[in-house]
Structure formats: C-alpha cells, structure tokens
C-alpha cells in the first residue's frame, strides 16, 4: 500500500474568496503517490478540539513534492486550518482511497460544483498531460463568479479550453444549475465518460442526466469520516439495491461508479 503519514510543512496559504482557501504543503511521499480523486486526512490542530482530522481531496500535486488542497471554511476545523501560516507543520495521511479511472476513454466530461471542483482540476491536468489528450469538456458550477476565484483561469491555463460555467446568480456563464449544461454541450453521439464531484443534489442531477443519455458516470462522494483508512467504518453508504454490506467511502471510494451507490 502506498500510503504515508507525513509531517507536512506549509508552503503557501492563499485566500481565493471570502471563505475559500488554497493550501500548499510539502509532503513528498504523498505527492509522488497521489492520483486524481484521492484524498488526505488533514490535522487541523495539535489539541483535542476538533479531535478528528479532516478528509480533503487533493487539488493537485506540484513537482512530486507538494500537495495542494482547496477548501471552504465550514466549521471549526477548516477555520483553524485557514489560520495556519507558512513554516508551520501539520500531520497528513495519504493518499487515500480510489481515484477516477479513465484509461482508454476518448470523450470525457468533468462536472464540478463548489468545492467539488477541487479534485477535478487535478484530474483535468493529468488528462491534458497525456500525449494525445481525449476530447475534454469541463462544466463548473458555483454560487457566484467570486466563489470560483482563479479557477476559470487555472483550467484555461492547462489547455482545457472547452470549460463552461454555471452560477446561481448568473455572474458567470449559465444562470442556473451546472447539470443543465450536460444536455447543452455534450453531443449524444459520443461515448461520454462523465466524472462528477460536488454537493449531493447536484451530483444526483448529473447522475440522472447521464442515466437518461446512457453516459458512463463516476461520482466522488463525501461523508463523515473519522480515520480515512477503513478502521472506523463510519463512512458507510448504501449500495444501489439498498441491501448487502455497506460501501465505505474511504476504501471503496471516494470515487464510485454512479450505479454502485444509492441516490436517495
């Protein structure tokens, strides 16, 4: 197993939007092993409040030495994380779980919403680095243009030119839901492999669209999780037939085939 526990030094902490941060950490073992869609367990404090590490997907690796995370401040843990400054160190476990699997796909669409965009950037970058990149369409949704921060430019810079946006307030791209862009931009003649990550209702809508069109779909799920290494069994999700043993997001996922899991 290529999993590591590293004491990671903070290289950069950037505020991208009012509550959104991008954290760059020096973690060479994790960086060298990480694949798009995998996650790390991040210590937010050396104390006991909050007690547990936070699962965060890898936004990208830089030069096989650094791990970059993008996160939104949603509670005490992420608040403490956002206050950490360069030179400080935190414990990091990873890379964990299974990432996206796209070998041999020639038409790929990534659909991200909010912080769910974080791992899709890593994936898009890896796709664009291949010798003959497949057709790649990227659909990104957020509440506002401001919430997307530098992401539109980041995706453009890696050569993902067919990137389209949807915002709740209409400040960038389509005024509405990102799932609505699937019908608009994907020609049904292609055999699309769709990868999605974001809020549950958004992914549910994406999965619905894919089912309707017969597209293959991979989803990256998020749950409460104590350990990230399949010891606590806290991250259970029901299978699509609602029977049999539960799946566990940390080990069986976080990326699943959409048809494996229940969409309640």
């Amino acid at each position: 197993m290529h999993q590591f526990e590293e004491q990671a030094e903070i290289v950069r902490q950037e505020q991208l939007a009012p509550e959104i941060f991008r954290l760059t950490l020096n973690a060479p073992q994790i960086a060298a092993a990480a694949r798009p869609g995998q996650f790390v367990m991040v210590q937010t404090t050396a104390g006991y409040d909050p007690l547990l590490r936070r699962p965060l997907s890898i936004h990208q690796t830089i030069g096989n030495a650094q791990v970059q995370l993008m996160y939104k401040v949603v509670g005490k843990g992420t608040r403490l994380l956002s206050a950490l400054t360069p030179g400080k160190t935190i414990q990091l476990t990873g890379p964990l779980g299974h990432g996206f699997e796209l070998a041999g796909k020639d038409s790929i669409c990534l659909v991200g919403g909010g912080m769910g965009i974080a791992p899709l950037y890593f994936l898009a970058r890896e796709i664009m680095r291949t010798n003959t990149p497949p057709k790649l369409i990227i659909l990104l949704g957020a509440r506002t243009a401001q919430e997307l921060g530098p992401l539109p430019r980041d995706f453009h810079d890696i050569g993902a030119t067919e990137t389209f946006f949807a915002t709740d307030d209409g400040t960038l791209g389509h005024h509405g839901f990102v799932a609505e862009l699937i019908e608009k931009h994907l020609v049904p003649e292609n055999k699309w492999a769709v990868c999605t990550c974001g809020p549950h209702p958004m992914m549910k809508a994406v999965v619905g669209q894919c089912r309707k069109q017969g597209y293959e779909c991979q989803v990256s799920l998020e749950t409460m999780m104590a350990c990230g290494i399949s010891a606590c069994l806290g991250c259970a999700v029901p299978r699509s037939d609602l029977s049999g043993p539960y799946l566990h997001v940390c080990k069986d996922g976080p990326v699943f085939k959409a048809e494996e899991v229940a969409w309640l």
Partner: protein
Amino acid sequence: MNQPDLRITIGNLVFKNPVLTASGTFGYAREFEPYVSLNQLGGVVVKGISLEPRRGNPPPRIVETAGGMLNAIGLENVGLDRFISEKMDYLRGIGTRVIVNILGDSLEEYQTLAQRLSDVEGISALEVNISCPNVKKGGVAFGTDPAMAEAVTRAVCAHSSLPVIVKLSPNVTDITQIARAVEAGGAQAISLINTLLGMAIDVRSRRPRLANIVGGLSGPAIKPIALRMVWQAAQAVKIPVIGIGGITTTEDALEFLLAGATAIEVGTANFVNPRASQEIVEGIGRYMTENRINGISEVIGGLVLS
C-alpha cells in the same frame, strides 16, 4: 543502563509491552501496516466478530463532539467464517499477540464463537464484548446485569481453551459489582471501559445526528471517567485489569498503569493519529529510561495516595 523491561503478564501469557489496540479502532491490523511496525506493539485486539456477518447501522454513524466522538457503527463485521479464512493468515504473521474480540446475541452464540476460535492457530486470547451499546438486542443486557455478565463469562470460559478477557460497559451504577461477577465467572482478565452511551442533536433540523439516535462516546473526553473506573475495578478484583478510554498520549497510558492497569488499549487515538499506538510504546520506554525504572511492574499500581 539496560533497556527497560516493558513485558507484562496476563494469565500465563507474556506480552512484550503493555500497549494493545482497542477493538473496532484498528481494523484487522493490516489497515495500519503503512503506519505502524505492528511487531512493536504489545498486541492487537481485532474488530469484534459475530457468528454471522453484520451489516451495521445506517449512516450517519459517527459525529464529532467536544474532545471526542460518538459512534453507532452497529458492530459491522465480516462474520466468523470470513474472519478465519480471510483475516487470520495475515494476523498470524504480524509478530505480536492477536486477541479476538467476540460478540453475540445469546449465550449459545458466545459459546460457539469461543469454541470455534479455540481451534484456530495464532490467537492468543479472546476479549468478550458484553458491553456494546449499539445493538438493540443482546449487548446491553449482558454487560449491565451482574448475573448475566457472570453467566456469559462462564459460558465462554467453559467452551474455550484460550484465556478470556471480558470487556466491561461503563454504563452501570457500580463497575466493581460487574468486575467481581466476571471474575467469579472465570475471566483471566477484564478490560474497561467500552464507550459511554451518548447523543447529539442538530438544532436546525431538530433531528438526532446519528441515525441510531444514540451512540458510544469515546476519545479524550471520557478519559477521566475511564481512569476512575479502572482504578476502582483494579482494587475490586485480583485478575489483571486492562485500561481503555481516551488514551491518546504516553502520559495517558502511564496514568492508567499507575491506577492499577496491567496493560492498556489505544482506541480512538488510532483514528486521529495512525501511529499513536507505536508512539505510546516508545514513550513508555523513554519514560522508564529517564526515570531509571527497570521493569514496568514498578509503574503498575504505583499510585501514591498519601
């Protein structure tokens, strides 16, 4: 000075040090292979096993609380047959003692588990879970009633050639009563405490945060209660006591040993820091060297009261 001697004895079993891992927090050990030199641990207590596989509770199963967490996993496990066929091969090779935690709904289930596991090579002892508060039937009744606790201990001991450790529930009025009952039933050791029954509510939705409504509280938040109960139990029985409950650091472990525990189990700390158990082994060794303590027996029960 020589290396300090961390070895402890429970029944006729010698452990290389007093640091074990608590059931349900260390998987089947393999999960921790990337992080811990398993052979450095005193022993590993594996995830609780029932006769048949158990699916566990629906999510959400865990919630973080101040200095701790609530869990209602519902004893999800692969069941006895798959445990023996899929997990034991690996466990036989980890270079430390393997203790198998067992749980059941009836005396017969405990007996069958005890009997079948006695025939499996590579198991050092059984730890009997009579205390898990998560499953609606069984569990609670065994651990909270002295007569039932004694009966289940007797049943397991009668059907097993392995040393039997009984893991106590803290959700009782008088822990010493249960400890004595289990000793009378023939247990070679007791371990305590299991989780404390707790609850959390989401005030926005007004719904419980756990699908099971209630769950077991663990982590640093429960350490003072666990320490008090271990201290009380250690005075009440002659058999060795294994201390469990919020142990996160070397100092925590030493407190339990001073209170009278012969060994300790590291639980929730494994989730927070996968290297916690090994760090505690190393820390106890350093503490002994620094304080010129030759043998761990000089620490166990060393609480000074006057």
